[in-house]
């Protein structure tokens, strides 16, 4: 059926890719396209865009998947340093939108340097632990902590709490899998808990109010609580089977904020109901399981740490987004992996997937 040349090219293309992973990603991509059509008032303009950047992201993923993890690893320090420098640049030359300075202008487009750190930080840490694998001392953990704190501090200043949390999480997972002693983990958690009252006392009244609204949105139904109440109504009214595709009244009467990006899950949940949610959870779980399998069989310390961090970060995105949209977690700006509309975040995710596949390939070879 196929000519040998085409067959050869096809071999070339699929060779570095992980079959199972591609299947799961394909399924979730299909769901997201169907959903975007509904969320964006049945218009094709965002669909075109999403197709375009997905193709770009896939290409990047493919290139990275073909590379040996060891050679990717060597980029860790320069990328990390570049990322941090760009974050510093944001402070001086950044673009401010809605009171936060997060972007750098590159003429034609603008980039969000904090997005780079989502990958660069775990890479840097994994590189660091691999380098000192055989001579690791307790103080190496302090250096590692500093590597985490510098970019996180810069991102917090923007301010961008959501991204700062995600970067911290990505870094923490590397430390965790590198063997951060349980004693330290528990002590850190205890210290964090103990510092909360102190932090609380130093907050402004309006900041406290904001935190309280996060915990109970009904206290501010006209303001910040509004979004979350509306999205809970959307999810709840979806019921076991959903209202059906294109039939979400909450969605189409404009009650859902940011319904193509951070709150897209509310649209999905209203139209496809509990059944749809279960399907989505299963899809995510399949991706995570496959990723964990790759992690478990990784051959180098770098590979293990990197794969574990990518996997767990992916999990955190999915969990935090669905948690916040359904009202059990505070609203912080976290996209739903592969579902939310937005180019930069998708590219980041696919880069992670590419690294994962690269690590997987090394095992096979």
């Amino acid at each position, binding site marked *: 059926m196929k000519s040998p040349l085409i067959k050869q090219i096809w071999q070339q293309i699929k060779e570095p890719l992980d079959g199972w992973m591609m299947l799961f990603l394909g399924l979730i991509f299909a769901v997201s396209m169907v959903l975007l059509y509904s969320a964006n008032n049945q218009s094709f303009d965002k669909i075109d865009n999403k197709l375009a950047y997905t193709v770009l992201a896939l290409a990047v993923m493919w290139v990275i998947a073909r590379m040996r993890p060891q050679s990717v690893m060597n980029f860790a320090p320069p990328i990390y340093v570049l990322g941090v420098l760009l974050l510093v640049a944001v402070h001086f030359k950044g673009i401010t939108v809605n009171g936060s300075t997060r972007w750098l202008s590159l003429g034609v487009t603008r980039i969000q340097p904090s997005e780079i750190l989502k990958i660069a930080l775990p890479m840097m840490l994994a590189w660091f632990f691999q380098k000192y694998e055989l001579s690791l001392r307790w103080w190496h953990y302090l250096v590692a902590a500093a590597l985490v704190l510098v970019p996180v501090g810069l991102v917090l200043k923007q301010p961008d709490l959501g991204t700062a949390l995600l970067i911290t999480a990505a870094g923490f997972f590397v430390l965790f899998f*590198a*063997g951060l002693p349980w004693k330290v983990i528990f002590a850190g958690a205890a210290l964090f808990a103990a510092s909360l009252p102190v932090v609380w006392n130093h907050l402004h009244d309006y900041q406290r109010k904001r935190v309280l609204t996060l915990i109970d949105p009904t206290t501010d139904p*006209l303001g910040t609580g509004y979004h979350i109440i509306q999205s*809970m109504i959307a999810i*709840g009214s979806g019921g076991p089977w959903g209202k059906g595709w294109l039939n979400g009244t909450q969605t189409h009467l404009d009650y859902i904020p940011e319904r193509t990006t951070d709150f897209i899950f509310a649209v999905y949940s209203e139209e496809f109901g*509990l059944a749809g949610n279960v399907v989505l959870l299963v899809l995510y*779980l399949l991706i995570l399981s496959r990723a964990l399998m790759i992690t478990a069989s990784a051959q180098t310390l770098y590979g293990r740490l990197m794969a574990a961090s990518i996997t767990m970060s992916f999990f955190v995105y999915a969990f935090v987004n669905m*948690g916040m949209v*359904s009202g059990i977690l505070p609203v912080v700006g976290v996209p739903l992996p592969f579902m939310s509309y937005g180019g930069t975040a998708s590219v980041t995710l696919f880069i992670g997937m590419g690294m994962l596949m690269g690590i997987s390939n090394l095992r096979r070879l």
Partner: protein
Amino acid sequence: MRRPSRLKNPQTEEEQFELRLVIAYALIILMFLTLLARFVWLQVLQHDHFSTLAQNNRISLVPILPNRGLILDRNGVVLAQNYSAYTLELTPSKIADLPATIAKLKKLADVSPRDEKLFKKLLAESKNFEAIPLKVKLTDEEAARVAANAWQFPGVEVKARLFRDYPYKEMTSHVLGYIGRINQKDQERLADEDKTTNYKGTNYIGKTGLEEVYEDDLHGQVGFEEMETDSGGRAVRSLRRTPPVNGNTLKLALDIRLQEMADKLFGDRRGALVAIDPSTGGVLAFLSKPGFDPSLFIDGIDSQTWASLNTDWQKPLVNRALRGTYPPGSTFKPFMSMAALMTHSIGLHDMRGAPGYFTLPGSSHQFRDSKKSGNGVINLQRAITVSSDTFFYKLAWDMGIDKIHPVVGSFGLGSKTGIDLDGEATGVLPSKEWKEKRFARYKPEVRRWYPADVVSVGIGQGFNAYTPLQMANATAIMANNGQVFKPHLVQQVVDSKTGQTRLIEPKPLRQLPYPQEYFDYIKEGMHGVMISGTGRRVGIGLQYSMAGKTGTAQVVAIKQGAKYNAASLAEQYRDHSWFIAFAPVEQPKIAVAIIVENAGFGAAAAAPVARGLFDYYLLGKVPNDLAGLLKTVPMENGEAREESAD
């Protein structure tokens, strides 16, 4: 301390890694189950509840506006209040043909061209789905007529709204300020401060004065009502109601009767008056003349009225008490005296000659005294009383600016007092550094401080420039023997919910470290002003002890040898009349600074105002013949104008 890491053994390393992977996987499953449980709760157990909400979504949240807090004077007299009136409001998004609708509505209500202009302005600034007033304060008849025909006009409503009212209008405009419609800039600021929610449905916000500074207190908290609405968006019934919290009441230190008296004593003249209770820093009267009618601004001012207010040569919009800076003239001398005593430039009993003129060494320029023959040989106290210019010229020349600056500055001159109003001017207390900075763009010869510069500074001319508020504050500090308070207009904030009173405490900021005998000495000199000095005519028949100091601030310089002749000058170029005073001297209850613009000698115009004000405040005496009181002060009395040093 070198301890081998546990990671060193590859065997344990991998076991540990695998253990942690298992833990991670367990965590993932657990968290997904939590999400699943949440979905089940929302989509199965609470499905009916949320379906109803979605059905009626359609439940609209209607904000309920709080009443803006009142502003009262110290005796509870209302200075700012609210009243209810009908407004005719249009929601553009619900109206198909706006011009036609307006044309029809004109037959039902009296819509003036000014109303229409304002409507167009607001229309341009607002979002389409917001109700915009076409006419405010409808008569009952108009309201009834429009309401009866409402069915013909979708998107047109008659609403009862609260309006702000300032019963004392011009008299309090520079203290209270005014509220105005929230504009784009206000909205951005509210968003920045995270207050947008609390301003849902609110049309007005404090723009200037106390209305602006105490906005957070006065505004209160917006309430809301959950309304079930039908498919047309009309309210069917109320499901839940959270009442608004009204704004807090401000109780001022200001005494409106005193303010009224000050206003009367000023008559039609321009200027400013600030009276302070020296024992608390509470501002008893705060007047800037002329004022303006704040109600002009509340519903948006039309460009014509704005232009006429703005270009009025009398500048009614300028808050002279807060922002006007004038050379203090001779009212500077008491503070200058403290500097002289503190730096031991002169002793309490030192006698010096005060001839009719002063010349700098090696110069022929004559700085003349107001009294041609001079005052003979006198001490510092007497020099204050008779306001001897030559005495202070010499004193300033001996001291130099470096000795004058810190002591005079400690009375708050040349720095903001920190009063609870926005936009206070800093004024100028000159120093070498100040001159260097002020003339930074000029040649070094201009920037440099010349020894001779200090001569005119010494009598309150030259580079000196202070606000009436600063002068009143400095006078209160002098009256109070160096106790410094922060001047404040608001004395108490009464919480509308709990009724609790939050005191704006009289906060003593600091005590000036000067000997009591110096204060007594200077105050005795100022007391003398009213008995045998430049203010003696004003002091005739005083029933309490009063201390004062006259001053004359020149507006234009007079050439060497020329004579100042007020009558030959256009009014705007005539001297300003200053007076500072406090009483009773033993236990001061009131300190005041008064400037009457272009009114000539301090003793002639400003001092009689202080006398009338003190008689009223301390004795309850209403001067029955204001014009007569002013006439009793002959023009030749007191000081003549000083010359500039150049």
